[in-house]
Structure formats: C-alpha cells, structure tokens
C-alpha cells in the first residue's frame, strides 16, 4: 500500500477554507490520545484547555492580551512568507524592540518626563526591530546568505544582550538581586482599557495592524507585488517587480511589528524588562501565520486560538497538573496538521496497492 499524490487541475477553494478546521479537529484527536497516555482524563483536559478559559471575564481578557503580540508578529511574518522571504527570527526582533524601548523607560525613570515617553518608546522599539530584521535581509540580498539561518542566529544574540542588560547596567538596585529593571514609571506604561482589568491599548494597536495589512494586501499595488513575487517569481520579474526590494521591505515591516509587540508586552502586561518576557511568541507567531492562511483576518482568528491554548495550558497545569510543555507539543502538532491539510488544496491523496498497480501496468 502506498500513498500517492495526484495534482488537482486547480486549487480547491472549498478545502482552502475548511482545512484549518480539519487541522484543529485532528490536533484535538491527537491531544486526546496524548492526554490519555499521560494518564489524565482527556475530556476534563480538553475542557480545561478550550472551554474553561472562555467562561470568565478575566480569562477572556487574558486571551486578548496574549493574542496581541502573536497577531502583531504574525501579520508581519505573513507579509514575509507571502513574498517568499523566510524571516524565522521574529523572536529576536521582539526582544530587541523590548530592549530598545526599555532604554527610554530606564533612562527617564524617576524624572518628571512628560507624556512623550511612551510614544517615543513605541517608535524606537519599532525602529530597532526593523533594523535588526534588516541584518539578515541585507545579508540575503547583498551576499546571498540564508536568511533562515542568520535571522535565527540573531535570536540567540538578542536573548544574550537582554540578559546582559538586566543583570548588569540596567538592574534594579532594589530588586533583591533579581535580573530585572525597576518597574516602569506610569508615563512609560501602556494604558489599560478597563480600569483594574488586564486589557490594554496594545490590543487596539494589534487590531489596527490587522486592518492596515488587510488594506495593504487587498487594495494596494504593493500588496499585489508581494503576492506575485511569492507565488510566481518569474512572472514578477516580467512585471518589473523586484524580489530583493520586497525582501528588504517585508523584513523591515515584520521586524518593526515584532519590535513594537516586544515593547508593548514589556511596557504593558509585564511592566519591567527581565529575561523570559516571551514564552516563544516569535516562534508561535509562525504557527499563527500559517494557521491563518497568511491572511490578516485569518491571522486574527488564529492568534486568538493560539492565545487560548496558552491560557488553557496554564489552567490545565493548575487544575490537572498537566505539564506546560504539553502546550508546545500541541502547537507543534497543530502546525503539522495545518501544513498537511494545506497539501489537500493542491493535491488529492490516493492509496495505491502495489498488486493492483501491476495489473494496471500489464493491462
């Protein structure tokens, strides 16, 4: 018995729509098996993962808070991937944005700096993220170095830089030797949307980013260029679209968005700079981008779904002592199923039995 792919005459739009749902369904079946292997009641575990976080206001806000960086980063990554530029280092651009923005917060700490502080932090973080992303983009365009490997290597560098700063020059002298900066001043903090709640201005910014990306891709020549360069590089050259320029542009935009997400996370939910500000947002955003079909609205939905798995994972850990790593396994499996189901858009799967093949060959 052998699995054979048969190319469809044209891509199946029906499957393009339902394939993320099939993928989620298959992931849940797989997770049920995994929970059973771990000796946990699968129904209770699934309830803790997917239902419980949706039932109270605090968790709902928390989902929006977690989805904010995921959506912002994934929108940027989707532009890169559409243009066939493989930015894998969003995690590093996120960290660099957090560091650059925090620089202003740390330097103005305790001074009577005005309301300009937060906007300046956001701008600087976006610029730093963009510049950091430009390193692999320029190495790719100028020298042909694999942007996959260089952008990824820079994640480790950013991580170490952050570690150095919070253990060294920026460490809070009153922090009991913990590697962290002091809590940011109110002027250096992202304002909350609901008094006493968790929802903050960053979520609005993320929604604006989604809207901007939808307009860019759906209504502008630039968006068209990005999609043509990715889908048909040869045709793009005839059309006078240059892949190299788009690599630079999409990397810069995705770096800026990741950097912005970084400072929003630090100046918002976290409140100070410290190691471990990201539970792998930059990598999870890759899954969000694919699950959302590289489409802005799809990414918004996918971001909320992945955020649900983060929150559900925490609740499952507290309620049922399910290890947090299960969330990462879940996310990895989900990405596999999403990619496998995508294959259904272009191909039909067929099982071929060797003996039948022989008779067909003979006849």
């Amino acid at each position, binding site marked *: 018995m052998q699995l054979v792919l048969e190319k469809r005459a044209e891509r199946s739009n029906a499957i393009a729509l339902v394939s993320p749902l099939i993928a989620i369904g298959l992931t849940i079946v797989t997770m049920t098996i995994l929970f059973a292997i771990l000796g946990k009641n699968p129904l209770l575990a699934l309830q803790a993962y997917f239902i419980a976080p949706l039932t109270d206001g605090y968790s709902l806000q928390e989902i929006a808070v977690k989805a904010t960086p995921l959506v912002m980063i994934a929108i940027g990554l989707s532009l890169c991937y559409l243009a066939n530029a493989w930015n894998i280092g969003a995690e590093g651009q996120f960290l660099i944005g957090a560091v650059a923005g925090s620089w202003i917060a740390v330097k103005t700490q305790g001074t009577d700096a005005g309301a300009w502080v937060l906007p300046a932090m956001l701008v600087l973080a976006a610029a730093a993220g963009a510049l950091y992303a430009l390193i692999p983009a320029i190495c790719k365009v100028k020298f042909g170095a694999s942007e*996959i490997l260089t952008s990824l290597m820079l994640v480790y560098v950013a991580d*170490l830089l952050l570690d150095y700063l919070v253990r060294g020059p920026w460490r809070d002298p009153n922090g009991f030797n913990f590697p962290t900066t002091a809590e940011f001043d109110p002027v250096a903090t992202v304002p909350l949307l609901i008094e006493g709640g968790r929802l903050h201005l960053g979520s609005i910014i993320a929604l604006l980013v989604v809207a901007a990306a939808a307009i860019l891709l759906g209504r502008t020549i630039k968006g068209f260029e990005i999609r043509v360069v990715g889908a048909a590089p040869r045709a793009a050259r005839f059309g006078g679209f240059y892949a190299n320029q788009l690599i630079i542009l999409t990397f810069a935009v995705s770096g800026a968005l990741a950097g912005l997400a970084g400072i929003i996370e630090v100046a918002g939910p976290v409140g100070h700079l410290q190691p471990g500000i990201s539970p792998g947002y930059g990598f999870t955003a890759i899954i969000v981008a694919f699950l959302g079909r590289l489409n802005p609205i799809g990414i918004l939905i996918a971001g909320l779904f992945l955020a649900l798995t983060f929150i559900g994972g925490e609740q499952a850990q507290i309620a049922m002592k399910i290890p947090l790593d299960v969330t990462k396994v879940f996310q*990895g499996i989900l990405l596999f199923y999403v990619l496998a189901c995508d*294959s259904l858009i272009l191909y039909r799967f067929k099982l071929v039995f060797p003996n039948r093949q022989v008779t067909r060959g003979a006849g």
Partner: protein
Amino acid sequence: MELVEAIILSVLAASTPLLIAATGELVTERAGVLNLGVEGMMIVGAACGFGGAWLTGSIFIGALFGIIAGTLMSLIFALMALRLAVNQVATGLALTILGVGLSGLIGAGFVGERITPAAHLYIPGLTDIPLVGRVLFGEDAFVYFSIALIIGVWWFLYRTRAGLILRACGDNHVSAHALGYPVLRIRTLAVMFGGACAGLAGAYLPLAYTPFFIPGMTAGRGWIALALVVFASWRPGRLVVGAYLFGAVTILQLHAQGWGVGIPSQFMSALPYLATVIVLVLLSRARSGGSTAPAALGTVFVPDR
C-alpha cells in the same frame, strides 16, 4: 602544556555533537532535502538519550534511544515533506517546535538527575604519552565514532554507486526518477539517516558533555549544524574543519572567563552565533559566482506516473 591539552580535549568534545549532526544533515541535503528540524530532532534525542541511560545505567543504550528518537522524528518529516509534498522549510520549523515541546515533556522527569558520563578511553602506555597521548588515545567513544562516521559518509558519497545515486537525486530528481531510481524512497532513507545522526548528536550532550539533562540544552547547536553544512559547501572534508572551528569558538568563550578577560560572559556566549552569521555572509559572498548547493535542494518532488 596541560592547558593546551585541556583546551584541545574540550574543543573536541564541543565539536563532536556539531560534527555528528552536520554529517547527518549533509547526507539529507545531498539527497535534495532541506530538513530544518535538526534542532528539534537533537533536543528530543537529548531527552530520550538521557532517559535511556538513566533508566538502564548504560551509555550505549542511552545513545541507542537517542538514535531511535531522532529517526522517529525524521520519519514525521519524511511523511510530511516527501509523501505529502509540504513545504520543507515550514515542515522543518514545525519539527523543531514540536521537538522542543516533546523534549520538555519527556525530560521533565529527569531534571536534577545525574548519570556517570561516557568513559574516556584509557590504553596504558599510549594514553600516557605526553602531549598527544590523551588527545589521540583518551577520548570518549563518541569522538572516535564521529570521525569514523564522516569518513564513512565521504566514502559512501564519492566511492559507491549508492552514493552516486543519492547525489543524483539531490541534483536532478526528475532525471533520477526517469532513470528508474525511487527518488522518494532514497530521500526518505537520507532523511532517516539525518534524523539518526541528529538524535545521536543530541544524546551526546547529556551522555558525555554534561552528566545531566536540562530543557533546551542543545542551545541552537542544531541550527549551527545546519549552517556548518553551508559552510562546508556540502563536502565532508570541509565539514570536519568547520565543526572543529566552531567547537573552538565555543570553547574560547568558556576559557575567556577563566583567563579573566574583562568582557561580559553574555557577549562571549554570543560568539558562536555571531560567528555563524559572519561565516555565512563571507562564504555566500565568496561563492557568488555559482552556488555549490545540490541543485534540487529544498524543492518538492511529486512523481507523475
């Protein structure tokens, strides 16, 4: 002199996992498959390798567990990227994301446990020779195995018919298919070999490098191994040079601390990653005339019958 000996020994130890993982990926890429999941296969190999050794008390069984774990992981990749013709870059990333989670899950029970690391060879007389004795005749079995492995791969690729066919699949899968070679089966085997090597390279870390397991202990070595294959221009000989160079950079960072160099440790730790970026740039630039990569590397092949 003792210091020089100690440095050479630690460079060899730091280079060995890079060499093993990169050798596996070299074969995979020579068959035309770009598997970016090396880091994921390595880290699962580390968790399973430590688990196997801790449960049985045998380093050999630990290594075997690592190999099996890496191979199983690579089979997921082969199913996705070869049989289902999914984009190889995305599949490789998915494999790494899954691997990081799985290794945390598998390894959770072993954190804080210790094992006796792989013994170093001791041949009375030979190992006692000053200067070269311990370096040449006092390594652990993995070091010798890694050298045998790369020599074996060189011989296979350039001196056997099977190696020629494998390279043909990597350079032109359409022609190889037309000549009647089972491209997908050959690629699957190459991916499995890469997985086995990555699993073993991961297992090396808790079995010989440090006697314990911590989550995330591969620390990007899988990615550096991928860069090494580019560095080596897909040639086994240069791969050895590259792996030892990178091992040396890693060790430089550790020893700089000991020598009291006044640079923050984080900057020294960033060296291997920065070196990777610089090396990739310099090499790609030097090679701008024409790529030496296998021509079909990373491209999807769906046989039409």
